């Protein structure tokens, strides 16, 4: 009976989400088909990442192959709110260029993903949209280098080539404009999964804000010793462009695309490009300076999933489900109903036969301060269990303190 009920709920939720996607999400066009990178891997992942939010309903459009007839590529941009470029290839037709320009000028949102900032070196308006680009014989004629040095933004007109990257490595991304909608609430510093650290990007850099940088350490090989722009927000007439230099696709997306920081900044940047605001909450698993966080399935862990995993908790495997619970507790602050609901789920888990001693210890620690009278009898019942006696006494002492 219970299982059937659950299935019904899941089915309901699925209908709800797919409704969001197909009917109420921002219509999004992901353009790919030519790239020096593995677009066949990256484009469906970009689609999944965007659609996962429930905010976007995206489709992937594949251009003719390199050297093909580009006049055949002629999308109706006016149908979309957002265009995501996973494209680094042949020039589009003049007609298509003009249509895209029109789309942006009239307020269309654009996401420039990784090697898309290599594309179209000779298209002036495109380069103004992306702010900074690399490779394709870009040099001082295309605009200055832009980077941070000693925490100061530097616009550097020195001569030299645009675009390089050292050895792939994990690196720390540093927020530069903390109150920009895309960055609000994100950590000041977070580890990004192994990626190409795009460096020496240069371009018109007009109406561009550098939202985040990464230090290209030379010790890791090929570094510029500059804090290079990683996330940029550009406005072009009425249009907004979010540019992420990160996310190099390896097999299955690899650590650069699986990185929760890449995923979440892409989701937030895409929303900003469409609306100028970000309504998405910062997820509990956003990475920090403590280390890289990967989402192998590109999805955020839900509380329900975390609670189901917590029962079999083994600290040696992962502590992230506990962190999820803790984050939910702190987010429920000021809402006694929500807190009691969490407490009830924790007590259920605490008294569950399948629950490991390790898991009980953790739950007792949390309940010790966030618990109410509701927890007391369950906790009392555990004092006699030699394996968790210390934690049960600890929790009981705290639960009953101040009475």
């Amino acid at each position, binding site marked *: 009976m219970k299982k059937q009920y659950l299935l019904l709920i899941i089915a309901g939720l699925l209908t709800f989400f797919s409704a969001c996607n197909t009917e109420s999400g921002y219509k999004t066009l992901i353009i790919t088909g030519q790239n020096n990178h593995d677009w066949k891997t990256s484009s469906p992942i970009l689609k999944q990442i965007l659609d996962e939010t429930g905010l976007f309903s995206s489709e992937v459009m594949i251009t003719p192959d390199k050297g093909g007839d580009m006049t055949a590529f002629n999308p109706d941009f006016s149908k979309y709110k957002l265009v995501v470029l996973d494209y680094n290839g042949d020039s589009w037709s003049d007609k298509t260029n003009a249509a895209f320009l029109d789309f942006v000028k009239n307020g269309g949102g654009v996401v420039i993903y990784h090697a898309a900032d290599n594309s179209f070196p000779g298209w002036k308006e495109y380069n103004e949209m992306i702010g900074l680009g690399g490779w394709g014989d870009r040099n001082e004629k295309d605009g200055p280098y832009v980077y941070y040095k000693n925490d100061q933004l530097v616009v550097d007109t020195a001569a030299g080539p645009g675009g390089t990257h050292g050895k792939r490595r994990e690196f720390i991304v540093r927020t530069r404009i903390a109150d920009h909608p895309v960055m609000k609430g994100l950590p000041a510093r977070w580890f990004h999964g192994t990626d190409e650290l795009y460096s020496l990007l240069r371009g018109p850099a007009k109406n561009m804000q550098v939202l985040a940088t990464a230090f290209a350490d030379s010790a890791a090989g090929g570094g510029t010793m500059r804090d290079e722009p990683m996330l940029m927000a550009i406005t072009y007439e009425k249009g907004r462009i979010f540019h992420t230099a990160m996310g190099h696709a390896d097999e299955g997306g690899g650590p650069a695309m699986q990185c929760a920081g890449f995923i979440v900044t892409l989701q937030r940047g895409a929303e900003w490009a469409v609306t100028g605001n970000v309504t998405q909450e910062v997820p509990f698993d956003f990475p920090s300076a403590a*280390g890289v966080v990967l989402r192998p399935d590109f999805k955020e862990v839900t509380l329900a999933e975390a609670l189901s995993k917590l029962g079999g908790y083994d600290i040696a495997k992962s502590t992230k489900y506990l*962190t999820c619970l*803790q984050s939910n507790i702190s987010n429920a602050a000021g809402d006694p109903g929500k807190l009691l609901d969490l407490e009830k789920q924790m007590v259920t888990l605490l008294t569950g036969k399948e629950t490991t001693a390790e898991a009980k210890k953790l739950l007792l620690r949390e309940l010790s*301060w966030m618990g109410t009278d509701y927890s007391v009898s369950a906790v009392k019942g555990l004092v006699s269990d030699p394996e968790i006696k210390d934690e049960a006494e600890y929790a009981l002492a705290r639960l009953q303190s101040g009475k």
Partner: protein
Amino acid sequence: MTDKSSRREFVKQSAKVVAGAIILPNIIPASALGKGGSTAPSDRIVIGAIGTGSQGTSNMRDFLELKKAVQFVSVCDVDALHLANAKKIVDEANKNTDCRTYDDYREFLEKEKLDAVSIALPDHWHGIIYTAAVNKKLNVYGEKPICRTIEDGKTIVGAVKKNNIIWQTGSWQRSQSHFHHAAELAINGRIGKIKNIEVGLPDGGKGIGTPPVKDVPAELNWEMWLGPALKVPYRGVAHWDWRWILDYSGGQLTDWAGHHIDIANWGAGLEHTGPVEISGKGVYPLDGIFNAPVEYDFLCKYANGIEMHVANAARQPHGMGATWYGDLGWIHVDRGNRISASDPKILEEEIGENEIKLYKSDNHWQNFVDCVRSGKQAIAPVEVAYRAISVALLGEIAMTTGETIKWDPDKEEIIGNPRASKLLSGPYRQPWQLPTV
């Protein structure tokens, strides 16, 4: 396992043999002869050390550098290697082999007749051992932060008051002239009336995941290292790295509160009070045994209208250090002799005869010794240290609960929030308890 424990037992026993070899202290503490007595060596402060890891031995060396000011006679640690190293330092200084060693602070406090004790332990031990030492009427040089919980802090402050001893906190920045100068300019209104304070403390670093359970090294008494903290298996993390684990510390935030929050309080005249409202958010590691926040960002409002913003350095305009903002300008101060102001001329200002003169010390360890001799209050007394760390502890509670915390700095209570109030104290693992004052 049995092999390991028997080896540990052996180390323990040999430490005891060393301790037992000398029955009577052969150095009579200065207190026994009356402070201010001028005959050497009893003129020296007779001192022992509890906790002789990196910070403990660093403090010992700082004391020994003072010319004939102190004589160490005994050391105590739960790690036999730390203990042997500390004994070596003392014996070299004393040019003998008399330094007594203990692996249990209770025995140390019971047997040793001292003027003072230098204590440097993981924070979770501070409440119990500071209070126990003070209850023995020992003058204490104690490392910051002085407590892991508000309750620990209140108890220690109460014990110091009751026993009327000299307390010096290891907040040594107070004894550096540029910090003193900056604080004195701020408190004397050189930037006008102070409105806001910004405190930048270190950013947290990379985690280590969850290392496998290991055999406890023969030299370490793990059970005693844990003491009042909940029992967990040994994973190779104890010395130094305890500061990234919430059972023992609050991370960079609480580690550094006793420095830059302390200085900020000093220059703003807040060192005997606390905020009335605290709110903020932390960034916690997702995974692994290091679970202290790697970023923290909270705002403290004071009854007089001042707002103090405490955050990791990457979030602060001036980075590390303390910055006071008044209606006429700002002053920023940090380590490495860094001091700056909105107008550099402010820094050249001198403090006049009738203005507030902040306590001046040029050497933090000498100041303690001088005060033990004179009976005067040291530059970093216990209540001031408690007020500095309580800002961080209340910030920690606000971040953990997600709530805006209302604090009564006079009654030292959280107002109207039973859940948050439970975080003011950490129940101890039986049989450990905070000593009564």
